């Protein structure tokens, strides 16, 4: 998420509002915002994981512990120190861009821990969504 922070204003200038959803508590969401210095980025919580399930995101210990996850984790820790897990440790995430008419113009499902779309891809897809 730290990678996205410098691009929040760019996304808003394009006309796309960024949001983050996590599975921790509201207090953990506030702590997360402070930790990544992204107080202006709305962080929402879904402790029942209803949106994760409805979106089709994977929940799997095997995928979370996949060797690729370790590689992603090491890279992430170097770039941005990790802290304790706040939320469901087996729940993977994803990303969507949704237009006001309900059209999903971009969808990305994480297959292993640390698998997420590149920020450049998100910015490109944001531009396409408003084109």
């Amino acid at each position, binding site marked *: *998420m730290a990678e996205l922070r410098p691009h929040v204003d760019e996304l808003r200038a394009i*006309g*796309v*509002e*960024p*949001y983050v*959803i*996590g599975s921790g508590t*509201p207090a*953990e*969401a*506030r*702590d997360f*915002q402070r930790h990544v210095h992204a107080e202006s980025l*709305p*962080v*929402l*919580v*879904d402790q029942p994981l*209803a*949106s*994760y399930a*409805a*979106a089709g*995101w994977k929940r799997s210990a095997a995928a*979370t512990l996949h060797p690729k996850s370790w590689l992603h984790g090491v890279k992430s820790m170097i770039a941005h120190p990790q*802290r*304790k*897990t*706040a*939320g*469901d440790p087996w*729940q993977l*995430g*994803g*990303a*969507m*861009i*949704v*237009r*006001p008419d*309900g*059209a*999903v*113009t*971009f*969808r*990305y*499902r*994480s*297959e292993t*821990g*640390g*698998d*997420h779309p590149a920020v450049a*891809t998100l910015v490109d*897809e*944001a531009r396409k*969504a*408003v084109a």
Partner: protein
Amino acid sequence: MSAPATTTRVSDELAGVELRDSDDRPRPLRELWRDRPALVLWVRHFG
């Protein structure tokens, strides 16, 4: 990973989910894209 080129529509099931904001106030998911496109990122955990 998956990033289909075709445009689909968000499901009613997903749009109808009610989230909480960081101040523990209810926030319907469909409100996120009501006024303009939204980039929604579901993270694995806050960490």
